[in-house]
Structure formats: C-alpha cells, structure tokens
C-alpha cells in the first residue's frame, strides 16, 4: 500500500491543502505536521479557515488539492500508483472513529441523557456490549467532573457541563487524535476554566490534540506549538511562548495586539 507514506510518529501531515467553497478560496496551501502526543493550538481571525482545516482533517469537508494523512493513512482516499480512489462511506466512517471532534456549539444529542450520549457511539458504531461501555462512560464522565449529571439531559446542563459531556463522548471512542474547534467560545466566562482544565488533563495524559482557540493562556501553558492562520494560509508557526511574546510577522502582531 502506498498510502502509508509519512511514517514515524507523525499523527497529522498536511501537504499543500487547498479548499474552495464555490469560487471562495478558503484554504490556500496549508502545510502542517502534528507529531504524536503534540498539542497544537491554532489561532487566527474569524473567517481565516481554521474550522475548515479542522473539518478537512476528519473529512467532514473534502479537500480540493493536496494530501492529508492521519496516523499514516490518507484521509478520504486510497492511492494506487498515481491514481486516487475515493473511499466508500463505510471506510470514511471507519477512519473517523479514531479522530475525536469537539464543536463550538457542543452538538450533544438532546434526546439522550449525558450517559447515553457518551455510550451511543461505542455501542452503535463499534457494537461493544452495553455493560462494558456503561462502565467506561461512567468513568469518563467522572473524569470530566460530571459523575452527578449522568442522568441529566443536555438542556438541563450548563454550557460548560455540556461541553465536558461532549469531550467525554468523543473520548469514549478511544481516539488517537482530538480536534477542538473553539471549544470555549460559546461559554460564559466563568465556565471556561472547567473545560480548559479537562483539556489540560487530556494533554498531560499524552493525547495528540489540535485546538482552535482564542484562549492564549491555554495556548501558552499547554500548547507545544502555535499556528497563526490568516486568509487560508499558515502565516507563522512556532513555540507558543515565542510566537506570543515575539511575533515575527506583521499580521500576527496586528492580530495579537487586538486579542491580548
């Protein structure tokens, strides 16, 4: 198989990613590498393509050119010789099982309790026995500090609690990679800390994470690398402390002067 090209401990490798929405050129040649266990934070102005890039990584959006690998496997395609073949829905779904995603607006299933939300994918997708999944789901909810909210429906939980359930739901599939799309942007300020704490714990546990965020404190403390995106391109990349303290690029300086 030639689709296992970038070996080693690379979890994500993006090579010249372009993405168009109609005539709108949203991603203009993204090259990025995320090693296993790395926490990469992505910042940038609204509309710069951060969400779109994240969604390409688990094939919620199709890329128009370039190559994207997750854990050594081409995302959404199979390569034989020079030719690319689109994967079937079943195969794409199988790839996504290893990639957890957390959304800005939580997207919990409102008709299921917190516990049912967390149990849904392992039972329905992987066909694991309910009893075992229940154990794991309960310990995950405990881990995110919600052992007393298991029977609650999302509408009965605060935003911060909902987001922590969403994180537990993604972790229940035991992913190798976690994608966070502005996980705290929809939260009241006093609820942000609890969610960031959970993410920090996850990072300490060695999870590979790509985090789109406006929380510079989190990026500085937890991030191993920081990427600044603007107008669909990576403008600057480096160690978070260095980029935040001493941005090289004009556009990074402008952006940071507005948000810090």
């Amino acid at each position, binding site marked *: 198989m030639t689709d296992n090209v970038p070996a080693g401990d690379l979890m994500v490798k993006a090579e010249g990613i372009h993405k168009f929405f109609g005539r709108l050129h949203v991603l203009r040649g993204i090259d990025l590498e995320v090693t296993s266990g790395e926490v990469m934070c992505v910042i940038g102005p609204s509309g710069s393509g951060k969400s779109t890039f994240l969604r390409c990584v688990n094939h919620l959006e199709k890329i128009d050119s370039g190559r994207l690998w997750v854990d050594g496997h081409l995302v959404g395609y199979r390569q034989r010789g020079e030719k690319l073949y689109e994967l079937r829905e*079943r195969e794409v*779904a199988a790839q*996504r*099982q290893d990639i957890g995603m957390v959304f800005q607006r939580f*997207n919990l299933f409102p008709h299921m309790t917190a516990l049912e939300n967390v149990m*849904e*994918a392992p039972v329905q997708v992987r066909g694991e026995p309910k009893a075992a999944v229940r154990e794991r789901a309960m310990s995950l909810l405990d881990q995110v500090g919600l052992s007393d909210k298991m029977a609650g429906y999302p509408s009965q939980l605060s935003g911060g609690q909902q987001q922590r359930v969403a994180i537990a739901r993604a972790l229940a599939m035991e992913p190798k990679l976690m994608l966070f799309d502005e996980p705290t942007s929809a939260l009241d300020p006093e609820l942000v800390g609890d969610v960031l704490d959970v993410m920090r714990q996850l990072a300490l546990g060695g999870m590979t994470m790509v985090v789109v965020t406006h929380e510079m404190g989190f990026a500085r403390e937890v991030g191993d690398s920081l990427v600044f995106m603007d107008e669909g391109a990576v403008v600057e990349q480096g160690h978070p402390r260095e980029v935040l303290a001493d941005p090289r690029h004009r556009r990074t300086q402008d952006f940071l002067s507005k948000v810090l």
Partner: protein
Amino acid sequence: MTQTDTVEPVRPETIRAVPVRHPGRWVSGAIVLVLAAMLVHMLFTNPNLDWGTFRQYFFQGGILRGLVATLELTVIAMAMGIVGGVVLALMRLSANPMLSSAAWLYIWFFRGTPVLVQLIFWFNIKALIGDVSIGVPFGQTFITWDVNSLVTTFIAAILGLGLNEAAYMSEIVRAGILSVDEGQTEASQALGMRRLKIMRRVVLPQAMRVIIPPTGNETISMLKTTSLASTVAFTELLKAGEDIFNANYKTIPLLIVVSVWYIIITSILSVGQYYLERRYGRGSSRALPPTPLQRLRRNLTTFHVKPQTVLERS
C-alpha cells in the same frame, strides 16, 4: 435564596385594587347559554331525532362491524402513509437525482388529484391494466391473475387512501428532518456513524417532535376520510349506517349513530396524540407540560393562589 439569614425580611404589602370589569364576557356568555339551551331542548323534543332508534342501533352488529372496518382501514392506510412517507422523504433528501425526482413526481401526482378520484380509479383498475401476469417483460408470461380478484374493494380502499397519504406524510417527515440542526449530523459523522444509523438514532427521533402533531391531525383526518370508501362499495362505518337507513328510512338517527362513533374515536386519538407528544418531547425543555390529570389536580388545589406558585416544575 438571596435572603440574608440574620434578618427576616418584611414582606412588602400586596397591592389590593379593583380588577378590570369585562361586561362583554357576561353578555356573550349569556347569548351562548341561551343558544345551548335551545339546542338541548331541540335534541330532546324533536321527534325526528328519535333517540329510541339511536339506542337500538348504536351497538348493533352491522354498525360495529362497520366501525371495525373503519378502524382497520385507518390503521393500515396510516401505516402505509407513514412508512411510504418516510421512504419518500428520504428519497427526496437523497443525493441521488433519480431518487429525488422520482419522489417529487410521486408527490406531485398524488397531491394533485382528489383522493376520491384515486379511490374510484383503484376500484376500476381492471379497466386499465386488465390482468396481472408474471413473465419476461414484453415477452412470454407464466402466471396470470384476474385483477378483480387481487384488488378487492378493501384493497382498493387501502391503496387509494394509503398511497395518497404517503404523499402528504412525506412532506411532514421531510419538514421534520430538515428541522433538526445540521450540527447533529456532523457530530454523529465525527463519531464514525453512518448515514442510515444517523437517520435512525439521531435525526428521526428529534424530527419526531415536529412530525407527531401533524401526523396526529392526519390520523384523525384519515379516520373521517375512510368514509369515502363507502363510494367504492366498501362497507365501513358510514356504509353500514347507509345500508340500514336505506332499508328503514331512519336516516337522521343513523347518521347520528355514525357521527357519535366518529367523535368517540377522534377523541381517543387526540388523547393518544397528546401523550405521544410528551414522550418525544423528552430532553427538549426543562419541564414537560403537565398531563390533563396533573393540570386538573393542580387547578383544583391551587385555585385562588397567585400564578407564580403554580409554575412548579414537574
């Protein structure tokens, strides 16, 4: 509670004011009461109503058999409508242009013609296709059936009502599916779920909240629309009544028998719809609306209390 625990706060004086008078309500109330009294008087004194005949036929065998046939027709046609509606809705929303235009065409045709015409059409289907046979298309045939033995009046009624209902139900189901936030599908996809599973486990259960109220209306409407089947000689409730009053000319009492049965079933269906809506409202709001029983109990116990105290959560 925001009260400090040291000082017991003094409760401010409640406003005592003369409430606004509503003379219009008293006048209209009086008029309605007089009209109601006239109606009741007429019901019990008009000899043409003939309550003796009503009692005689209300539980009569023919009427009850007609009632059962009406219920069967309603249930089967609605089941066809719901299953067909879901299939048509999924077809219309599918990415496959053949499927979506086929569904569009179906809906266009069945909503564009009166259901009575469709019923008569199915009843006379023999005139269109002659006999049904199995064999090579355009070639040799192996088995042949007489269409009239296949399409009995019952089958004709079911086809006419059910296929028509599917067209209406598909629009209801489609609206329900479209009402579910796109983020739900994305979250499910990100978890590795596949299309059909997402539909079954995530989207349809949430769409139910939007689908059930109009489906209840459709069911109630279907119950009454089955009376059209009497025109294709299928003996349901109305036809059962007609058969009797064609023989004894007691038209009005028998129409009342039939109407009272329709009202009874409609009322039962409305109650069922109410509880179904509650069931699928799970998780949608912090408190479910009270059942009529709960409301009655609460209204009786808190009749003159200020509204705030009634707003407890169930």
